[in-house]
C-alpha cells in the first residue's frame, strides 16, 4: 500500500515538474505581434564560417551592425560545408522558406541565380556605389542576364607554391616565368609536380597555365576548346609527367601529401590557397615561409588563377530583403572586412585588402594572383560539368582513353549540359 502511494506521489511530482518545462503558454513566441515593436526585423543569416571566423562574426560584426541599426536583428546560423547544404538551400528557396541571407561558395552562385532562386541585387539604387568599393573581377560569378545576384564577401585563389631549396639546387633564385619551363625543370632534375587530383579546382590551374580552356569565353561551347589543340597538349603534358612518375601515382585517388612534400623538398611545386600559410602558427609557419616561395600561376595564355571564395546572396522567400541588403552592405564595408580578415581570409573590399596585404607578407602573391583570375564556367549545370570533366580526366590518367578521345567525349557531354 505504501509503495502504491509512493508511486502516485512520484508520478504527481513528475507531471507537475514537466509543466515547468514550458515557461510560456504561447508556443511560437516570435510570431506574436507586440506593441511598440512594429519596426523590428529579424534577418536569418546562414553561413559556413569556421570557428574563429564565427567568433568574429558573432562577437564583433553583428553587434556593431545592430548598434548602427537598432531595429535590425541578425540571427546567425552556422552550417557545415557540404553538398547537402546546397540541396537544403535549393529546396528551401524553391518553397519560399529560405533564410534571408546566405554566404555561399562562389561556384554555387550561377546554379542558384540561373534557377531563379536569388533576388537581383542590382535593383537596389546604391548597388553600383557598393560594388565600386570591391575587387571588380570577383562580381562576375553573380552576373546573369543583365542583373547581379551576389555580393562577393571574401575571395581566394590558388598560387603555385615552389620549394626554394630545389630551385636553388637547379641554380634558380626564383620560379620560372612560364609553366612550360617549370615542366622542363622538373624533367631535367626529376623533380615532382604536386598535382592534387583530377577535379576542376585541383587540375584547372595547371591546364590554364599551359594554355588549355574548358569552354569559349561566352561559356556556350566546349567542343573546340576542351578538346582543342592547346588543351589536348596541356593534358598530354600532364599525363606524360604522370607516366614518368613525376606526378604522384595516387593523384587519381585523391593525391598524396603535397603540403609536406613541397615544404620538405620532395616536390618542386604544388597549388594551394592562402590557407597553406594562414592555418599555421609559430614554428610551423616559419618553416612554411622559409622553405617555400609562392607565385601566381603564370598568366602566359591569359588568366590562370582559379577564382574561389564566398558571396552573399538574398534567397527567394526572404521575409526582409531590404533589411538583408543593409546587412550585406555592412558585411562588405571596410570596417567589417578588416575585422574578418584577421582570421586569414582575403577581403573583397579594396581598402581592407590593401591593409591585409601590408599586414601579412605571404598574402601578397595571392593578392597579385587575384588580379588575373578565371571563373569556373558560371552556368547552371556547373556541378554536373565538373563531374563529367573529373570522370573523363580520371579515365585518361588511368589509360582507359587517349587524351584527344577522352576530351572530345567530355566536350560533347559538356556541350549538352551547356545547352540545357
Amino acid at each position, binding site marked *: 500500500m505504501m509503495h502504491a502511494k509512493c508511486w502516485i506521489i512520484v508520478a504527481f511530482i513528475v507531471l507537475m515538474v514537466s509543466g515547468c518545462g514550458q515557461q510560456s503558454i504561447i508556443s511560437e513566441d516570435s510570431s506574436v505581434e507586440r506593441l511598440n515593436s512594429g519596426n523590428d526585423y529579424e534577418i536569418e543569416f546562414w553561413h*559556413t564560417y569556421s570557428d574563429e571566423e564565427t567568433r568574429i562574426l558573432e562577437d564583433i560584426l553583428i553587434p556593431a551592425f545592430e548598434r548602427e541599426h537598432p531595429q535590425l536583428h541578425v540571427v546567425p*546560423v552556422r552550417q*557545415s*560545408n*557540404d553538398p547537402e547544404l546546397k540541396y537544403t538551400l535549393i529546396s528551401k528557396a524553391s518553397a519560399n522558406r529560405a533564410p534571408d541571407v546566405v554566404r555561399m*561558395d562562389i561556384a554555387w552562385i550561377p546554379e542558384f541565380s540561373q534557377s531563379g532562386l536569388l533576388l537581383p541585387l542590382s535593383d537596389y539604387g546604391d548597388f553600383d556605389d557598393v560594388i565600386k568599393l570591391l575587387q571588380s573581377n570577383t562580381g562576375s560569378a553573380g552576373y546573369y542576364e543583365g542583373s547581379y545576384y551576389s555580393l562577393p564577401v571574401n575571395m581566394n585563389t590558388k598560387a603555385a607554391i615552389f620549394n626554394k631549396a630545389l630551385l636553388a639546387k637547379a641554380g634558380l633564385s626564383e620560379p620560372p616565368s612560364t609553366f612550360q619551363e617549370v615542366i622542363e625543370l622538373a624533367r631535367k632534375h626529376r623533380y615532382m609536380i604536386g598535382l592534387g587530383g583530377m577535379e576542376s579546382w585541383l587540375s584547372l590551374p595547371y591546364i590554364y597555365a599551359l594554355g588549355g580552356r574548358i569552354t569559349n569565353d561566352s561559356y556556350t561551347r566546349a567542343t573546340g576548346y576542351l578538346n582543342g589543340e592547346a588543351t589536348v597538349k596541356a593534358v598530354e603534358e600532364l599525363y606524360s609527367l604522370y607516366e614518368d612518375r613525376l606526378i604522384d601515382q595516387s593523384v587519381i585517388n585523391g593525391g598524396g*601529401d603535397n603540403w609536406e612534400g613541397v615544404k620538405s623538398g620532395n616536390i618542386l611545386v604544388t597549388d594551394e590557397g592562402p590557407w597553406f600559410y594562414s592555418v*599555421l602558427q609559430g614554428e610551423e609557419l616559419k618553416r612554411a615561409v622559409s622553405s617555400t616561395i609562392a607565385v601566381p600561376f603564370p598568366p602566359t595564355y591569359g588568366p590562370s588563377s582559379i577564382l574561389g571564395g564566398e558571396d552573399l546572396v538574398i534567397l527567394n522567400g526572404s521575409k526582409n530583403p531590404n533589411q538583408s541588403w543593409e546587412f550585406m552592405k555592412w558585411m562588405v564595408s571596410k570596417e567589417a572586412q578588416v575585422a574578418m580578415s584577421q582570421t586569414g581570409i582575403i577581403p573583397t573590399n579594396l581598402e581592407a585588402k590593401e591593409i591585409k596585404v601590408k599586414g601579412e607578407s605571404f598574402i601578397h602573391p595571392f593578392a597579385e594572383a587575384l588580379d588575373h583570375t578565371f571563373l569556373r564556367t558560371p552556368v547552371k549545370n556547373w556541378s554536373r560539368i565538373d563531374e563529367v570533366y573529373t570522370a573523363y580526366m580520371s579515365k585518361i590518367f588511368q589509360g582507359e582513353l587517349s587524351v584527344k578521345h577522352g576530351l572530345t567525349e567530355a566536350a560533347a557531354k559538356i556541350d549538352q549540359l551547356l545547352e540545357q
Partner: protein
Amino acid sequence: MKTKWHIQLLVYTLIVLGALAFLFPFVYMIMTSFIKGAYSLPRPREVFSVIPNLYNYQLVWSKNNFARYFLNSSLVTLVSMAGSLFLGCLTAYGFARFKFPGKEFLFRTFLLTMMIPGVINIIPQFLIIKSFGLVNTYWGLWLIYIGGGVVGSTFFLRGFFESIPKEYEESVLIDGGGSWRIFWNIYLPQSMPAIATLAVLSFQGTWEEYFTALVIIKDEAMRTLPIALLMFNDKYATNYSWVFAASIIALIPTVLLYIIFQKRFVQGGFNEGGVKG
C-alpha cells in the same frame, strides 16, 4: 588430442595479425590526435614518433561548441536509452507472457517497421513531429529515438523473456505478487545480460545519430555531437589532428559504457538452479 605446436603457432600468428589489422587504424587515429596541425594524413614515421599530449584535446573541447554539443548529446542519448529500454522491456514482457487477440499480427507489424530503412521514414516522421509542434525540441527527437528503439528492444527481449521458466512466475503468484512484481523482480534481473547489450547498442545508435538530429533540430545551441564533429571538416584545410581528437572524445562514453556493462555480457546462468528438476 593435443594440437601440434606449429598449427598453434599458425593460428596465433593469424589471430595476432588480425588483431593488429583491426587495431592499426585506431592506434593511427590516436597517435595522429597528438600531432600539432596535421593538415594531411601524416606518415607512419611522424605518427609513431609523436609524444602523447593533450594539446589538441583541450583545443577541440573549446572549439565549434564541442562541449555544449557533448552535453546536449548526453542528455538526448541518456533519456532515449532509458526510455527505449524501459518501454522495450515492458512491451517485450507483454508479448512474451500475455495472450491477447492479434498478438502475433501486432508483433509482425513491429518487425515490418524494422525492415524499412531509416532514411525513407524521415519525411513522414518529420511531418508527424511537425503536426505535434515538436520540431526543434528534444521531445520530438526523443519520440523518434524511443519509438525506433522500442521495436528493436522488443524483438530482442521477447525471445529472452520467453526462455525464462514460468515456474518463477508461479512462485511469485503464490506469494501474492502481481504482474508488475513478476516483471520487476523476476524478468528484469534475469535479463540483465540482454538489457546491458541493448543499452550499449541503444546508446551507440543514438550517440552517433546525425541525420534525424539535423532534420529535427534547427536551433544551433541545441545541436548534437555528430554535427560538431562535422564542423571540424574545414572547406579548404582540414586539421586531422582536431578531427581525430574530437572523434576520440566522442568515442569515450561508448567505450566507458562498454567497459561498465562488459561483465554483464559474459555473466550467464542467473536462473540456473532456480527450478527443480
